[in-house]
């Protein structure tokens, strides 16, 4: 191969093999912002992954919970018996007049213990007793509250509240046992009757006992739970609305002469969940998507790497009040007057820079209702975490996009404070038409660049409806 090399190859190889030249000084900014964007994408993907994992975990737990609440009766039975045994010692100490047969309940095996309850009861009567399936099954559902919570925690915890719950359960259990006792007595007499007395009357008695037993079968806490959950649900509200967003901002540093950056109106959308903690106080949170837009005229290409003649140079960045905008491609600049105003084409059009930032805000707000009638008025205040979800910049010439890029060094998360009014008009018992003018101020700068102080103020007027679950 070397033999094939000739003089012209050598000439170029010697001169160009180790040729070096410094690239445009703002190229590193471009690379940095691209790397940041990649990192952000990775973070978002990670958050998505966690979200999916959490959803799967939630679905799994929900499935597990549901399957546990619908355990076959014999399994539930075992758990109950086991729980009773564990707590029995405490109860023995406090109440020695316990109607249960203690010798039966001290057995280690839960399954056996339920049998021994019967066996023990038999032994007191001194007669054979076959446990009735319906009698055990009937009190099993009444213990469903135990399954909704961790059985292990109930067994291990010695907190008073749990002991109270179990005491209450035990009193219910004792009622059932009284019936079992009656049933047992009846079975004994029934066995005697079978030998020569009326079977029909025996069946009637059995039906009556079953009815009595089933009436006692309900969960002693079911009523309270339903009542509580009903009250809980009635306090919740769901609001949805859209809003025009007006933004103002101050310019924190000096820019090129004639450069003019102004904020443009944008839109936002909100989905909020509220909870009425008191009659007039509602706490709200949710998701608000909002945009910030700004337009720069007489774009400052002062970093242009100037050379003689036309084109005058190239640039890959523009300075704005929100920080440097780095473009995906370098821009070739032309000067019409030989001065510092550059155009992006020889045709002489002045380029316009448009920037757009998208944020998802997760606010925590409290509203106090001053007037709470058909027409209601409240004052609202709160804070929010704003996550950057969109960062676009475009350079337009005569309405045509000639380059695109993004604003460098924007923070992924910023914090804001907001206050405003909530005006509502009840359209029915559940639906309220709302108008919420809100002023929002970014507490920290949107840019991580210390020389850029970009803390815009926003006014958004959310218009929508609120649905109350009452």
């Amino acid at each position: 191969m070397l033999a094939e090399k000739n003089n012209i190859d050598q000439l170029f190889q010697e001169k160009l093999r180790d040729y070096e030249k410094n690239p445009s000084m703002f190229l590193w900014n471009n690379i940095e912002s691209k790397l940041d964007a990649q990192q952000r994408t990775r973070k978002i993907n990670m958050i998505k992954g966690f979200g999916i994992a959490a959803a799967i975990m939630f679905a799994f737990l929900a499935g597990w919970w549901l399957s546990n609440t619908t355990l076959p009766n014999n399994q539930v039975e075992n758990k109950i018996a086991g729980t009773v045994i564990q707590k029995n010692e405490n109860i023995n100490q406090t109440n020695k007049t316990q109607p249960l047969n203690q010798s039966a309940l001290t057995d280690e095996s839960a399954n056996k213990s339920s049998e021994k309850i019967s066996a023990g009861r038999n032994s007191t009567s001194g007669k054979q007793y076959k446990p009735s399936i319906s009698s055990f099954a009937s009190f099993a559902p009444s213990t469903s509250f135990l399954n909704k919570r961790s059985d292990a925690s109930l067994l291990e915890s010695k907190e008073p509240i749990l002991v109270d719950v179990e005491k209450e359960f035990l009193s219910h259990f004792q009622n059932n046992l009284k019936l079992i006792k009656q049933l047992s007595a009846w079975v004994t007499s029934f066995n005697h009757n079978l030998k020569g007395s009326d079977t029909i009357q025996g069946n009637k008695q059995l039906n009556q006992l079953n009815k009595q037993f089933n009436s006692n079968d309900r969960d002693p806490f079911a009523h309270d739970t339903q009542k509580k959950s009903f009250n809980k649900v009635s306090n919740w509200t769901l609001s949805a609305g859209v809003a025009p967003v007006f933004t103002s901002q101050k310019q924190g540093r000096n820019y090129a002469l004639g450069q003019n950056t102004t904020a443009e109106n944008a839109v936002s959308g909100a989905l909020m969940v509220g909870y009425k903690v008191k009659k007039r106080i509602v706490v709200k949170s949710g998701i608000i998507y909002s945009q910030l837009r700004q337009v720069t005229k007489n774009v400052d290409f002062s970093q242009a790497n100037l050379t003689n003649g036309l084109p005058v140079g190239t640039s890959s960045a523009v300075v704005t009040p929100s920080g440097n905008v780095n473009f995906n491609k370098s821009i070739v600049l032309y000067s019409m007057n030989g001065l510092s105003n550059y155009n992006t084409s020889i045709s002489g059009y002045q380029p316009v820079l448009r920037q757009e930032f998208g944020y998802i805000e997760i606010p925590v707000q409290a509203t106090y209702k001053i007037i709470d009638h058909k027409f209601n008025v409240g004052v609202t205040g709160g804070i929010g975490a704003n996550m950057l979800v969109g960062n676009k910049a475009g350079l337009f010439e005569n309405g045509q996009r000639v380059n695109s890029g993004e604003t460098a060094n924007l923070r992924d998360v910023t914090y804001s404070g907001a206050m405003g009014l909530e005006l509502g008009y009840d359209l029915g018992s559940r639906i309220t038409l709302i108008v919420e003018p809100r002023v929002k101020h970014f507490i920290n700068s949107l840019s991580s660049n210390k020389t850029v102080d970009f803390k815009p103020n926003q006014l958004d007027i959310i218009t929508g409806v609120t649905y109350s679950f009452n």
Partner: protein
Amino acid sequence: MTNLEDCIRKCSSGDRKSQTALYNQFASKMYGVCLRYSKDSTEAEDNLQEGFIRIFTKIDQFGYKGSFEGWMRRIMVNTSLEKFRKNSHLYPVEDMVIYEGVSFAEDTISGISAGDLLKMVQKLPPRYKMVFNLYAIEGYSHQEIGKMMNISEGTSKSNLSRARVILQKKVIEEFGLEKNTVRTTLC
């Protein structure tokens, strides 16, 4: 070398300071590579930017076995090649030409600057430019170039001849006559 290795390891964990240091150390060299494969500085900067992003993304794949600079250089060349491949359907395949080699006087060579030669290379048609760079400057064989550019070995040779003819003509026009003519073709 140890410092460079430390820097590379920190870069692979995403340390921005180390990335900046690495960029500052190699940007000018890599820009020199990109300039040879591009038609102008704008295209070269685009390739340099893309190349460095790839370097930082794949830096954990560097095995510390060879030269890191060589590894970076290959990434820059591959980035330029990929861009070429995307547009390769736009470039026609030329027939084989006969190239008559020349040798230049030493004083003529010393009077030619690298910048002048770079401009000549940049003005070559895209395919000739790629083949000339890969063969004459990087040292790849025609077989390797054929595979890299998805062309035949013969096409690679032909393109190299064309490139040499054009470059030689330019050098003679701008910097003076050759000392003597080499009689053979080279491909």
